[in-house]
């Protein structure tokens, strides 16, 4: 433990070896999906604990229970040795557990000081000067640079995050939980945040840092807990980690639990050709000289830790972003020509990561959701043949076993797996020659995952599949070739049968070539 623990924080009281917060065998289920499976963790004062895991590994569920948003189904939470059951976030805050969410809870039209002191004004008549002084003093104490008089709506994301932190500090939170805090930050702001985290932990606060970014975890954490498929896969000191590759292996996992039948398919014509594609973002290159080909009849697995350019690549291929520099040909046409008037049928289909935002409309029924991308197949002039669309939706539901098998249900009433099967079925009706599938099994249970894999492999007989995934198992099972992305750069492009290269995927994902 750090020697800085004996520091003068009057809020903490005497510090001994007792953890501030202890999770004992906590389990949380959503339907059939076990989001957290018997998790035990200790959160110590003056330490920064990183919770590392892929999207859907159960990190956010775990922290939502600590923050009082869900109750565990099994197990319990102890705060300072006492068993607690939080039924609201207010109770968690009162117990000294504060959470900085990815989406800030701030009033944009108010000043920093007003936001920090909201609900803690300490009197009916406000004294703006004294409020600003209080906040300025708190900010200085923890090394958070902020102008207390600034309007929150005018601040950068990094500054807004500091306001959220100040809110928690002012409420005397002892445990501060950060959910993917660097997702909205620039590299400079990230460095400032890490500095503040170290500062707060030196003053006795317990910090929990949730992330899937390996370098960040290694640079800031004292201890690392790896979460995979809802279980703690390992817990160790950051100093024990030999390399980012080591960490990547632990996070992604290599054990192949499931197998699928793969029939060899003769590669067909070129469907996607990317040459020297680059894109600049505010904090550096988002895509850096990316080149690859994709043929009909093959699955190209694009593998990488989230946020390494996958999104930009997909959005460029799918027509949301025009390529800035480099060449992108789809089905033999260049990007501009392809998207000038591309056919709904027999061309490109996209299964986005965001199932209930991009792929479907939550409050529309399945027939309408089918028509979202296939309406041109059901229209005669300005008339829409809804009877035929209903029949088609019914066919998809039957063919892909979409439960509960009713097309009059709205998209939000379906489970993630069933909605995903419906989306895949819908996209396959477009007879694509190029299919882009983005994290297609994220958050799905094992049965649905297997069904989606079968569908993708079947699709490969008539299309080229660009499979973007962070799941190594999935990539190895489905892909003919694998491309590893790191910071927008292609770290490797090799056949999935190349054992030597496959061994090195972990290092490539961590940026080591």
């Amino acid at each position, binding site marked *: 433990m750090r020697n800085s623990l004996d520091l003068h924080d009057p809020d903490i009281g005497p510090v001994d070896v007792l953890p501030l917060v202890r999770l004992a065998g906590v389990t949380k289920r959503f339907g059939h999906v076990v989001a957290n499976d018997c998790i035990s963790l200790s959160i110590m004062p003056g330490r920064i604990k990183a919770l590392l895991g892929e999207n859907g590994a159960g990190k956010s569920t775990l922290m939502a229970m600590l923050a009082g948003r869900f109750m565990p189904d099994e197990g319990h939470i102890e705060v300072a040795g006492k068993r607690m059951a939080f039924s609201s*976030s*207010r109770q968690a*805050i009162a117990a000294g557990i504060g959470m900085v969410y990815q989406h800030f*809870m*701030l*009033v*944009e*039209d*108010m000043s920093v000081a*007003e*936001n920090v*002191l*909201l*609900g*803690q*004004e*300490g*009197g*009916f*008549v*406000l004294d*703006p000067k004294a409020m600003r002084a209080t906040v300025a003093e708190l900010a200085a104490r923890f090394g958070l640079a902020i102008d207390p008089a600034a*309007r929150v*709506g*005018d601040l950068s994301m990094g500054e807004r995050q500091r306001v959220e932190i100040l*809110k928690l500090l002012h409420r005397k939170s002892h445990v501060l939980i950060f959910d993917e805090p660097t997702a909205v930050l620039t590299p400079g702001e990230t460095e400032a945040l890490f500095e503040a985290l170290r500062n707060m932990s030196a003053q006795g606060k317990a910090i929990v840092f949730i992330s899937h970014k390996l370098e960040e975890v290694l640079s800031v954490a004292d201890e690392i807990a790896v979460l995979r498929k809802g279980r703690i896969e390992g817990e160790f000191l950051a100093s024990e980690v030999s390399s980012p590759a080591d960490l990547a292996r632990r996070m992604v996992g290599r054990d192949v639990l499931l197998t699928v039948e793969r029939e060899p398919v003769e590669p067909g014509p070129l469907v996607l050709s990317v040459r020297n594609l680059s894109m600049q973002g505010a904090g550096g290159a988002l895509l850096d000289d990316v080149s690859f080909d994709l043929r009909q009849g093959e699955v190209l697995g694009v593998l990488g830790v989230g946020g390494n350019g996958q999104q930009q690549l997909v959005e460029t291929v799918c027509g949301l972003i025009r390529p800035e520099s480099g060449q992108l040909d789809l089905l033999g046409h260049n990007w501009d020509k392809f998207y000038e008037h591309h056919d709904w049928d027999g061309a490109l289909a996209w299964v986005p990561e965001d199932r209930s935002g991009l792929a479907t409309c939550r409050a529309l029924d399945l027939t309408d959701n089918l028509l979202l991308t296939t309406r041109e197949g059901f229209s005669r002039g300005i008339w829409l043949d809804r009877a035929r669309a209903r029949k088609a939706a019914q066919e998809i539901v039957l063919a892909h076993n979409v439960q509960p098998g009713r097309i009059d249900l709205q998209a939000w009433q379906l489970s993630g797996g069933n909605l995903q099967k419906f989306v895949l079925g819908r996209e396959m009706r477009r007879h694509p020659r190029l299919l882009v599938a983005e994290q297609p099994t994220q958050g799905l249970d094992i049965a649905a995952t297997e069904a989606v894999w079968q569908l993708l492999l079947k699709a490969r007989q008539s299309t080229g599949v660009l499979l973007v995934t962070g799941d190594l198992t999935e990539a190895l099972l489905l892909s003919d070739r694998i491309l590893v992305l790191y910071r927008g750069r292609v770290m490797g492009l090799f056949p999935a049968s190349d054992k030597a290269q496959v061994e090195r995927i972990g290092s490539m994902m961590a940026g080591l070539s």
Partner: protein
Amino acid sequence: MSPELIIALLAATVQAGTPILYATLGEIISERAGVLNLGVEGIMALSSFAGFMACHLTGSAWLGLAVGGLAGALLAGLHGVVCQVFLGNQVVSGLALTIFGVGLCNFLGTPYIGQSTDGFHQFAVPLLADIPLLGAIFFRQDALVYLSYLAPVAVWFLLWRTSFGLGLRAAGEMPDAASAAGRNPQRLRFSGVLLGGLLCGLGGAYLSLAHTHLWTTGLSGGRGWVAVALVIFAFWRPGRAVAGAYLFGGVMAFQLRLQASGTNVPSSLLLMLPYVLTIVVLVFSAARARSARKNGPTARNSAAPAALGVNIEPVG
């Protein structure tokens, strides 16, 4: 026009602007709390009658004012119950409130048409009334006008210098943030609606107790709608509400004088003036707001409260 005439016109401007000012301030409080109340017209109509009746029966102008304000708060409370408890649509509920208030006022008021009441009378404020020009315009008015000089400052202080106001504005901007901070946004919103209704009610009572002293139907005459529009013009700020209210008061007073002077412009065209001005002002405000946004984040925010018109869904 002679100087005496101009001074008289300006004094009439203040009088005509006062009820609009009360109503605008009331609607600002309500909308700052996140509740759009389109029932201002109905509230003003009904409270003008309630104030008249109370004063007519008891002879006390102040009691009349209190009853008028109370009627406004009660009617607004109905809107609050519909929107806060039953999560009704704020636009529909507000429109219904206007139709209900105006209708009820006509129904109850018909037997009393033509009857007069004593109400409030003008008196000169010692010393201040002797200031050249300003004294004649601002300080030879009735008590409710003098109170209305204080009202914008009071509303500003309440909204920006008290913990209640801070919570109220948070409830109108981002109820989740207020709730996370341990405040009760539902309760704050309800207080805002009631307080706003009270001020609108005072504006309505002013019409019968100080403006006409005489009961007649249609006393509110669209002033409630003007107030709703003025809130947007005022960028939800009490200070700007004063300017807007007097601008409209001026146009109303001016068209009355013009009619009385026997001009050959048709009176129905003159009667339209305030409402034409409403549209002009709204276009102007929208353009201002857009240019303010274009000038980047440092420009003062002129947008509506972020959660205006959005009901707070119960959790779980």
